[in-house]
């Protein structure tokens, strides 16, 4: 029987477009199996944090050396084992276990800000059997120029793609002047296979009483989908790589919108955290129902029908849309 929901992402054949995004929902074998059982087509593992590993290594050495050789009765305090898994070993072991336990594609994720460590981690992740790698590159902008930031991202992506043969996607945030341009460059120069749009960050807030900053991350809402649809719509057919929309995909309607804009898959997290694992099954079933009840025979036909290239009112993707909306708003 033909699978009407089948799609492709990063060259991987997915049974439907729903990928479970990088989060605690995919943290271990038991979680991954639950996602697969509920119908998820692929999973992205939580990120391995390059900086965290580096920091952990340094802290561990400092802590083990602290207070050593200072006092005759206790020349050290914590027994130091011969082997400590201070690098990516734990991540890799978890990845291997998950790969062994599920049949759906498993995408590993690397998060970091410098080029050190990326190549090492990417290589061991590939060797551990990941089906693809998602690079979550965060460059703290400070006063860097936009060009310098893009250059660093390009550099990391290029190095990783040179070292691994599995597909590599880049997860980008909306903090770029021209996401489309950056994606195109990443595809052409760094050979990236796909793009995950758009990342969401922890953002600082102020406690006015304690005079302190604190960080929070709220779950996404469908209202955030719009900006993702814009870039997916603009990029559809302009790049060879696939687009996966993340941030704001909450139900089957959001999935349909994302595919119509041009994405080949979506990544869901918040709505599953809110509604439970059964929400995956429900969304897939609603999606199937929509296609069956629509004029489309399968998901592929749906893809990009309302992209910039194909939609009846492409100006909506442009500034005019902004102008018009603004006018409407001000007249209220």
């Amino acid at each position, binding site marked *: 029987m033909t699978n009407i929901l089948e799609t492709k992402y990063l060259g991987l054949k997915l049974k439907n477009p729903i990928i479970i995004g990088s989060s605690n929902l995919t943290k271990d074998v038991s979680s991954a199996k639950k996602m697969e059982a509920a119908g998820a087509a692929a999973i992205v593992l939580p990120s391995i944090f390059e900086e965290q590993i*580096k920091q*952990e*290594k*340094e*802290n*561990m*050495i400092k*802590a*083990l*050396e*602290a*207070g*050593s*050789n*200072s*006092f*005759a*009765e*206790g*020349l*050290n*305090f*914590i*027994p*130091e*084992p*011969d*082997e*400590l*898994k*201070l690098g990516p070993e*734990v991540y890799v*072991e978890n990845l291997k276990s998950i790969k062994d336990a599920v049949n759906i594609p498993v995408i590993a994720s690397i998060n970091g800000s410098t080029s*050190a460590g990326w190549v090492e981690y990417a290589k061991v992740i590939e060797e551990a059997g990941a089906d693809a790698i998602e690079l979550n590159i965060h460059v703290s902008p400070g006063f860097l120029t936009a060009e310098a930031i893009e250059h660093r991202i390009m550099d990391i992506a290029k190095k990783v793609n040179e070292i691994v043969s599995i597909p590599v996607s880049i997860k980008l945030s909306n903090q770029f002047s021209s996401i489309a341009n950056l994606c195109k460059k990443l595809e052409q120069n760094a050979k990236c296979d796909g793009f995950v749009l758009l990342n969401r960050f922890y953002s600082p807030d102020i406690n006015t009483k*304690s*005079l*302190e900053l604190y960080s929070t991350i709220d779950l996404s809402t469908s209202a955030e989908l719009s900006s993702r649809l814009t870039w997916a719509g603009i990029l559809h057919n302009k790049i060879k790589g696939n687009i996966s929309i993340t941030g704001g995909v909450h139900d089957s309607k959001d999935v349909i919108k994302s595919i119509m804009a041009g994405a080949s898959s979506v990544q869901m997290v918040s709505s599953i955290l809110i509604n439970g694992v059964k929400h995956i099954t429900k969304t897939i079933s609603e999606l199937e129902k929509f296609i069956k009840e629509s004029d489309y025979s399968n998901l592929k036909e749906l893809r990009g029908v309302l992209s910039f290239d194909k939609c009846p009112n492409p100006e909506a993707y442009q500034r005019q849309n902004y102008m018009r909306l603004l006018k409407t708003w001000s007249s209220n």
Partner: protein
Amino acid sequence: MANETTQMMDGNEAAASVAHRLNEVCVIYPITPSSPMGEWADAWSAQDKKNIWGMVPQIQEMQSEAGAAGACHGSVQAGCLTTTFTASQGLLLMIPNMYKIAGELTPFVMHVAARSLASHALSIFGDHSDVMACRQTGFAMLASNSVQEAHDMAAIAQTASLRSRVPFMHFFDGFRTSHEIKKIKLISDEALKEMVKGIDVHFNNSNALTPDNPKVRGTAQNPDVFFQTREACNPYYDKCAAIVQEEMDKFAKITGRKYSCVDYVGPKNAEKVIVVMGSGAETVEEAVEYMNNKGEKVGLLKVRLYRPFPAKEFLKALPKSVKAVSVLDRTKEPGAGGEPLYLDVVNALNEAVVSGDISKMPKITGGRYGLSSKEFTPTMVKAVFDNLSSKKPLNHFTVGINDDLNKTSLIYDETLDMEADDVVRAVFYGLGADGTVGANKNSIKIIASQDGKFGQGYFVYDSKKSGAMTTSHLRFSDHPIKSAYLVNEANFVACHQFPFTQKLDVLKLAKKGGTFLLNAPYSAAEVWNKLPKEMQQQIIDKDLKFYCIDAVDVARKTGMGMRINTIMQTCFFAISNVLPKDEAIEKIKVAIQKTYGKKSQAIVEKNFAAVDESLSHLEEVNYPKEVTSKHNRLGAVPDTATDFVKKLTSEIIAGNGDELPVSAFEEVVDGTWPLSTTQYEKRTVATEIPIWDETTCIQCGKCALVCPHAAIRLKVFDADKLSEAPEGYRSMDYKGKEFAGKKFTVQVSPEDCTGCSICTTSCPAKNKANPERKAINMSVIGNHIDVEKKNWEFFANLPEVERTELTNLNQVKQAQLLKPLFEFSGACAGCGETPYVKLLSQLFGDRTVIANATGCSSIYGGNLPTTPYCQDKNGRGPAWANSLFEDNAEFGLGMRFAIDQQEYFATELLKELSVEVGKNLANDILNADMSDDAAIEAQRERVVTLKEKLVKIGSEKATHLSKIADYLVKKSVWILGGDGWAYDIGFGGLDHAIASGRNINILVMDTGVYSNTGGQQSKATPIGAAAKFAAAGRELPKKDLGMIAMSYGNVYVAQIAFGAKDAQTLQALREAESFDGPSIIIAYSHCIAHGYNIGANGLEQQKLAVDSGAWPLYRYDPRNLESGKAPLKLDSKAPTKPIAEFMQNETRFKVVEKQNPERYAKLLESAQAGVEEKRELMEHMAGYTAPKKADDSAAE
């Protein structure tokens, strides 16, 4: 003998390496200096390292050495080859079982790092007091004199015990051998198998108690047969020495290393010999060689087998030409006719005369040397030989000290250097925190791992746990090194900390023409005039080659932080010429890669950069040939110090304790030392100190409460005092009605602060304009020390608040206005225990007697040179004593007995004298309420009046009463210790003490490990934490001591954490003290053994411990039962955070996760389930109130 493997190691590792491979069960318990043997065994078994029979030995920690001995006894009786490791008081705790094991003729070997026994004072250092106290047990005793021998004799003892059925104690000198690093030849597994070949290694098994072949052992015997049976064991002892010799001979065939039960070294025609055991023999051998080369005829008898005493072998080894013998004992037996080895030798020779084996007794003297690791050098050996040459040699002499009191000491020539010229000798002065010792251990390995090179490393640590100075003594040579004593003529001296140059004589040991390397924050052009005059003179007189480097700057630039070790190590190799420079640098880099490569390449790169940068920053100092400095070396103590401190303490601080004569200690012979002396030991170890910002302060007092060293204090004072204040002195108006109109200051003592920064983390106030800043902020000490020293001096002289003026001592701020009677201790920077001790001293110090269990709190509480407990303006303060580790609750309970007895008798006498002293006064005293400070003060005043009256009365009873009248004022007994004491070794006594119903207060400072001995697991160690003896992470939950105590129902119990809820801490301490019965407080104490920066994060971790449920806060007050309330009050909420959040911040948990993440996940799950269950149980208990008593009339 072919393919011999050599390795650098210390005596503990050398002995443990054999013990682990030749046993099936190791029963262990930590005690310095033997703990590392157990740690090695535990680590090897954790790594699945097998013994020579292919099994991984089982390692089991016990609750005490007594427990370990019992478990060893059981294990050998049930069929296993079993061993244990111990020292000192631990060995004494094993004595009862030693009699049993020996009486039952059971093959068994224990390994002892011989250490002093506590008498007038505790000492962790080496001598034979402990092993000599076991010479009567029936154990054979085999001594090792060096690291190599500790390895070899471990094997010989094992096979000799198996063959003879006599259990063996194999011992070597604590620290001198146990901690000395030397290159040794390893005994391979094959060699060990060869050693046991043909021996019934399964004897214990075939003799085992088993229901399959049942036996009864350990019967009670009566006068008719006991004696005879006791004598029946003699043949086993008679054969023992011969068996040992056979095993030694076999060992020689296998390894090439020859030993005898008694070894003679020297010419055949020697006229004088010294008899000695242990590491001292190495030193004597060096002196004998030197003296014989000078034409003397002297020899040495090394007694290796001490029990059974090999008299026959001794006589055989003693050259016939010998006319005089001097026997050296490393122990003291007050009142004995002589020390034990001396008496054994006298007896052996006397018996030989009686039996006609020798015609007459040689001249024999006995003497004591080396107690508590006191130096024993070749020149002292010469003095012993010289003594034998005198017409009337001194007998029962001492050597190595100046006994001007008893005139027992031999005089020796301190300037005589008997060491071979080709030995490179280096001394390094550093701080514990700067990595000096680690780098030197590494250097020895680099040098001595070369073929034909030999190395020796011995490390001396001071008694402080923060800002501790380390002195490394290194020797390198092309010949094996014997010298079992410190370097005293160094070719190379390095001072890794510039401030030492201003206070200490770091060039005392420098040899003429030697090299001096100094880490200084100055260039070669500047550094000369920064040195004190005395030091310049020494450099000129000794014609030293002088190099300097700003290692701190290089460390900072290369990302090494405080660790200057790699930099100074590189400089050592660059200028010492022990190895070709380039080769040495290459080897340092290889060592760095080996140490850090697996963990972090970034750290490797930083170290490489530090090595490269060091060479370009190292400068030779071309100094003038005249003293140009304008300043002298600083005195050890200020002029304000007491005469006692100036006379005695200051010499110890200055490093001249060895030179003090016996007469200097007449005043303190019984171990009683004056209080309040840490105030004179200005150590200035902080690099940053807290500076108060009065414009932001909210006067909460938290900074003073959390300060581990009482280096931050609060005072209120009259505004007019400010007229005398130094410039820059800060104060503000006091906020609060109790001292309205007065001024308030928070002041740091800059020279006593350790710079831990915990005060700043406690500060809740934020500067409104710049919230980054608080009311107290760390700042570089150099910018403030001059001003703050003056401020502190002024502050210290301001009057203390009267205790009676304080209106609410449950308020942190008011409690912190009380003078701490525990100050400036040597505890670790950021210590989590000392704030409790300090608070206790503030609240009750003027009426408290403290019994302190051995451990961290006894070390920072009473380790010389100075004492942190101090007195108030009335001369009152905590009276403090340490008995032992295992008996502290009983010790404290005994104090209560004595205090109560004297109070009782004073009461009785007062009743009898009530008419004479006046009935009103007598009644007021006898019925006084002493529930608060004001009432206690009133009672003190009444007792003063009473004493005045008693003088006038003048009768015998009145005189007696006046002597004990102070007991009519309330006295508090506090029993302090750590979890190792309370949960493990002292639990039996603690249990009995809380069941006694007596008014005692127990404060358990719970770090969850044996902190003082280096972090071994206790029953307080939390699940999931790695600790020594639980290297893979503890699998079982922490024992709930509070719950056990609550089960009595009549015990006040509280669990507290000052960093989480300081008000509850205060309340609990005060309630416990006010409770007229036993109380126990279990206090969360963060510790460096937890593996994080306790200064910066200790308080936060305490909060997390409470918020996650790992450490629930509660108070159980039996008094509440009487008023119908629930006795248990939970002072912390149900856990609001997962326990993982608490555990992830500490390396003790992290290493478990990083070893085996899956196992850790399970331990974490159990830990989480554990806190949830505990909370449920405690909530249930907190709802319990006593059933209402039946109404009496209704019952009728």
